């Protein structure tokens, strides 16, 4: 939404939003919501759908989107969205060990490969905060969170 707003299309004014929330306690990260949105697009119920690029590939593969049936209007720049976070007072040695173990997980190891696959990963990468600037600016712009961290976004069921 923030990306569209940055292009001059204000949500609620330039277009109406229809939500496709599935398991909203996962904060919209459930693939089912994006699949429902894509089906609505293909069926002509909506004019556009917001999906992440990986899911778009998935929907094409599983047949939800026929080849050439949709086109991409715009893309956000890449952003980070899944990470392991710890509180400031977490034990440093334990955190270090945890990171060490995650980074040691090899996709070539048959024991850990299914665990990586559960998360759709091939490898863990060292943590960074730089990939969140775009998301941070977006939630601020749209008032998604209140000052106390509670969800204040209109129409979003927590």
């Amino acid at each position, binding site marked *: 939404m923030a990306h569209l707003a940055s292009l001059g299309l204000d949500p609620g004014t330039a277009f109406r939003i229809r939500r496709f929330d599935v398991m909203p306690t996962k904060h919209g990260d459930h693939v089912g919501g994006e699949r429902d949105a894509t089906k609505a697009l293909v069926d002509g119920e909506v004019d556009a759908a917001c999906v992440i690029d*990986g899911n*778009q590939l998935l929907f094409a593969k599983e047949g939800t989107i026929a080849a050439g049936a949709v086109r991409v209007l715009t893309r956000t720049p890449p952003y980070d969205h899944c990470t392991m976070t710890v509180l400031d007072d977490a034990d440093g040695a334990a955190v270090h060990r945890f990171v060490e173990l995650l980074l040691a997980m090899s996709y070539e190891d048959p024991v850990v490969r299914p665990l990586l696959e559960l998360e759709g990963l091939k*490898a863990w990468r060292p943590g960074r905060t730089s990939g969140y600037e775009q998301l941070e600016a977006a939630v601020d712009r749209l008032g998604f969170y209140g000052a106390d961290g509670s969800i204040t976004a209109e129409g979003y069921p927590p």
Partner: protein
Amino acid sequence: MSAPRHVRPLDRGTSDAERPRLELGPLGFDGGAHVLVKLALTECAGGTEVVVRGTHPELLADLRAWCRQQGHGCTPVGPDVGVAAVRRGRAAGARSVGAERAGHAIATEPGAVVARPPPGWGLAPRGALVEPGGPAPDFRLADRDELWTERAESFYEQATATQWDPAVAIDWSQPVVHGPAIERAVVQVMTFLVENEEAALVVPARFLGQVHPHFREVQQVLAVTVADEARHIEVFTRRATMTGYGPALSTVGGRASLQSLVDEPDYATAMFLLSVMGEGTFLSLLGFLERHAPDPVTRRVAQLTRRDEARHVAFSMAHLERHARLQPDLRARLARAVEHRHQALQQTSGLNDDVFDALVLLAAGEEDPASIAHGWQRVQDLQRDMAEARQGRLVRLGFSPGEAETLSSLHTRNFM
């Protein structure tokens, strides 16, 4: 490495002359482009980058997303070169790391059938490259010595080549001209055959799910055996009911004898008791019916089922001959099983009297004293033939003639 057919080296004179390129044309990732990219990366393994070219408007963005998912490197290149250069990531070949070849698909190849396939090979086809990890199902029958025979494949081929359709192979419209007493005898014998074939279906079916899939040919023989028995149950039932009499008496003694087969937990012992002793005896019985049954439908039913049963017996003989050669103590186990079964069934009445009498009537064909005497003699001959054939098979399994005679005499009076 030579370039694959759809991946061509770039034109000489460019800085990318060494990198193979993949031309996708208008094909996008919404239409299967990843298949060709994957193929190109596989064929150009060893760190070589593949330059991907194409005209689909979303090619670069989709290629980057796909590469990120797959763990490949993806670097945009100038428009004169292509869309992006893709470098194969380590994850692409991860499933092959530590993977093991599960023998060989062709059983006659050296090392094709291993002595004890590991549980982790699970449902993988024999000969497949098995990714390590995953489920390790407990297939109880996983010892080559205890269930393999090199002839399994040929038995399976014979079985599939000789399957028959009861609706076509038997002319059910042929008339029954004998009297009611003879027909009731036929119905009684058919009833007896159906319940015996039920046991012959259930026993291999129980073991079928326990055989490690590495021994594919054994599974296949057991599976087609089960299908054979299902067909036998069909035709014996159809013959029993085609004149309106319906199935006749099923006795406690008959069912107790058959239940002792169904309850036998050891594969070799169960197949020995069922196929070698039981179905082997049935070969004589079905041959008897083929020769002496009073109507052409019954004779044809006996003929067709006998062919299948002969294959079942031959398969178990081949398996047990090999097993006994490799594990000489097997014979003692089998002998104990016969003795144990004999003791367990001592309190039962053995062959249903009605079945015995029905065989006499059926072989007599008429109800007059001379015919009955003739039928009686034929049943005596049948019992002698059953015993001699049983002893012959036991001798082939390595029992001495004396042992064979003793064990044969302890076989259930219920025939199966």
